[in-house]
């Protein structure tokens, strides 16, 4: 980032950790491309960007979890190489993750000095009392005397655990005699209550003078309140860098940098999906009832306001919201899965007819769900492409014949492969041999096999290349034209405004705003401001 370099070279600052032109590639995905970042002592830098912008990858490179393909890291202006997490710790670079793992049966002091017990020895043996005393001194020093060193980690709230993790960083840097640690906070605020947020904020203020800090966040208001400087990433590149003054003067600058217009634009243009074949695969339906799918009185948690959720036939509805907003949970709830803390509402109406809110029942009624966690909840990596496509078909049709006709399965799979133009030579190849985009198309094929009436799709184009994205959008439109209702949860606002006719924004488990996008004229910035 040029701006960053200029200020460093002016000599007025103390760069504690600097990454120059870092690039990282995973298979076909270029996760980071020439990203530079500079963290200065006594400063809090925010790292902002949408999901998939490369924030996590950058953190992994800075903490030695992974190595960059290109680029250099400088610690106090000295080039360093980090091969493992331990190298990073030795160099005084620490990371606190949003849900920092801890041993729930351990007391605070044991957790704090876990791995550094050898520094607390008396006559060759590890001394718990030395450790306990050091820990209690530290907590007092940091103004955390409300936390007792002998409390067990499992009894603490997530916010307090996070504060303990932060204190642990200071503890370890004392033990290792690191004067000015670099502390990276990976989404420290996402799980916290308002009081815990205030506490964390004052704690960060306290540590600021003796360290350089970076924190990752999607929440723009937070970014502006906490940080001295903001570094924005988009699509794996530096999108912008600004000081707090610059950002406060022009608030929209952050939004603009985060959600710049997608290179693909909003017209799908030429695509490889054969939309006529899709038309043939899905029978055109005309429905008397105005609502294809409706759920009344949904409450995602006890304190959230209830909302109704209705979708018409032929409609594409987009669900927007930051992480933790509840948009994914709404989809899972609609699919008949149980959502932690959600208040039960038992009936779903499909075309005016009531159905039990249970996965198998809804599947039979034509409600199909595709999870956003493709690898964990969608793909059977070792089963063949044909088997992956066929797995739900009999369950949904209710035809439960004893034997599988493998040749029939093959023929159907081959038809779908050509309809969706999946790049594959043999449908009996294991699914894990395909690229991410093609795997996703196979899963979409599984949905089409069910003759869907309602499709619930969670971030269906995440990790998918641009060409495949475009062809998936065309598929969506032709499905909608043929009477299918689609509900898409997505972190990609450009995707939502270009595909969805209606966009519903969720925040904190509640429905906060609805945009009519039937003319395709909603601005992603408008949505973004209601999300955060």
């Amino acid at each position: 980032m040029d701006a960053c370099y200029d200020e460093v070279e002016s000599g007025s600052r103390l760069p504690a950790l600097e990454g120059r032109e870092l690039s990282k590639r995973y298979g076909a995905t270029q996760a980071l491309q020439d990203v530079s970042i500079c963290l200065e002592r006594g400063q809090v830098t925010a790292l902002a960007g949408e999901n998939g912008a490369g924030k996590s990858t950058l953190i992994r490179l800075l903490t030695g979890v992974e190595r960059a393909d290109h680029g250099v890291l400088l610690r106090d202006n000295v080039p360093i190489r980090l091969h493992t997490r331990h190298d990073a710790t030795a160099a005084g670079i620490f990371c606190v993750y949003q849900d920092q793992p801890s041993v729930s049966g351990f007391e605070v002091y044991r957790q704090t000095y876990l791995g550094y017990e050898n520094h607390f020895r008396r006559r060759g043996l590890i001394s718990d009392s030395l450790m306990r005393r050091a820990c209690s001194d530290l907590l007092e020093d940091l103004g955390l005397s409300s936390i007792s060193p002998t409390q067990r980690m499992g009894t603490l709230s997530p916010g307090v655990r996070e504060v303990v993790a932060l204190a642990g960083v200071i503890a370890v840097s004392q033990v290792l005699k690191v004067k000015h640690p670099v502390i990276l906070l990976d989404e420290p605020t996402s799980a916290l209550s308002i009081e815990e947020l205030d506490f964390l904020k004052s704690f960060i203020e306290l540590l600021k003078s003796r360290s350089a800090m970076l924190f990752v966040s999607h929440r723009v208001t937070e970014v502006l309140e906490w940080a001295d400087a903001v570094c924005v990433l988009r699509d794996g590149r530096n999108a912008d860098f600004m000081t707090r003054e610059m950002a406060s003067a022009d608030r929209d600058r952050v939004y603009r940098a985060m959600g710049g217009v997608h290179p693909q634009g909003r017209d799908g243009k030429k695509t490889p999906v054969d939309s006529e074949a899709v038309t043939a695969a899905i029978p055109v339906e005309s429905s008397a009832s105005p609502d294809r799918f409706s759920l009344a009185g949904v409450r995602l948690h006890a304190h959230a306001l209830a909302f109704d959720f209705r979708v018409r036939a032929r409609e594409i509805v987009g669900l927007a919201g930051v992480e933790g907003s509840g948009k994914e949970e709404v989809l899972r709830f609609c699919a008949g899965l149980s959502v932690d803390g959600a208040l039960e509402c038992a009936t779903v109406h499909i075309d005016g007819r009531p159905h039990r809110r249970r996965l198998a029942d809804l599947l039979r009624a034509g409600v199909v769900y595709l999870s956003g966690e493709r690898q964990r909840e969608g793909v059977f990596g070792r089963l063949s492409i044909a088997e992956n496509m066929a797995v739900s078909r009999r369950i949904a049709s209710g035809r439960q014949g004893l034997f599988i006709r493998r040749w029939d399965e093959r023929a159907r799979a081959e038809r779908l492969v050509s309809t969706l133009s999946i790049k594959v030579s043999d449908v009996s190849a294991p699914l894990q041999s395909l690229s991410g985009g093609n795997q996703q198309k196979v899963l979409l094929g599984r949905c089409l096999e069910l003759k869907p009436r309602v499709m619930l799709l969670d971030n269906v184009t995440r990790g998918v290349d641009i060409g495949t994205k475009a062809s998936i959008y065309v598929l969506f439109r032709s499905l909608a034209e043929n009477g299918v209702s689609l509900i898409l949860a997505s972190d990609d606002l450009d995707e939502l405004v270009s595909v969805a006719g209606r966009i519903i924004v969720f925040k904190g488990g509640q429905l906060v705003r609805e945009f009519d996008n039937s003319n395709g004229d909603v601005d992603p910035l408008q949505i973004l401001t209601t999300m955060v």
Partner: protein
Amino acid sequence: MTEALRTWLGSVLVIIALIVVFSALQPRFMTVLNWQNIASQMSVLLVISIAGTFPILVGSIDLSVGSIGTLAGIIVALSLQRGGVGGTLAVPIGLLVGLGCGLLNGVLFAMLRAPSFLVTLGTFFALDGLASWIIGGTPIPITDENASGVFDSNLGAFPTIFLWGLAILAVAVLVCRYTRLGRHMYAVGGSEPAALLAGVNVRLVKVTAFLLSGLLASFSGFLLSVHTLSGSPGQNATLLLPSIGAIVIGGTTLSGGVGGPHRTFVGVLLLTILINGMQLLAVDPYLQLVVEGLVVIVAVIMSRERVSVFTAVK
């Protein structure tokens, strides 16, 4: 080529190598009589290994197959001894016992969500104890001519016990490859969350895997009783570890979702030929165990999971 397939192919090559080596060293190895012997020796292990393959396919394990076999073998022997209606229905009774044990395992595991390793470790001890207690520790002789005639004689050149084993294998392969149940077992073993979302009744599939395991385990116990002409305490217990070895050698991974009975057959064949050859070469029985153990370890190393670094990154 997948890891499991590589293991399987490796096993086939090892079998060929073993045959070549043993034929060269011991002229009695490559005779009709010895191959009949091998076929007969492998049958019980084959059936019990197929039994154990189902739970492993769904990502669990059944350690109680040996005990179920022992219990069923003893109950069949007792029924035959008592005669009457019980004698005629001895085999169905034994199989029912196996189904009951499988149901117990399945319910404890799938419904009460206890880990299968611990549940079946418990039933392993409990059923073995139960079997010994029923007969007071003394073997029950089998004198019934019919049972031996149907299950342990020769049909042409083939030992009937082997034909029974092959029949079980054929049905098991059919179930795994051509039925919905089989497909769902692979799905559950491959990825339980994905199977759940695809609408698979995961619990039912798991319970069914244990039912099949119990059923076939009891059949293996019965075959062994007929073969040894008695129902003896602990008779099938020694087969548990070789059967897990055979499953792994065949290329069914313990993580689930890969492999199947057809592969287990190869593993059983390999182990049986190895043991038979070593017996013919008069290798010390203790040393035989060492060799068997080493073979299992090599098979596990060859089939170990390799996690790809290039999985999707968000």
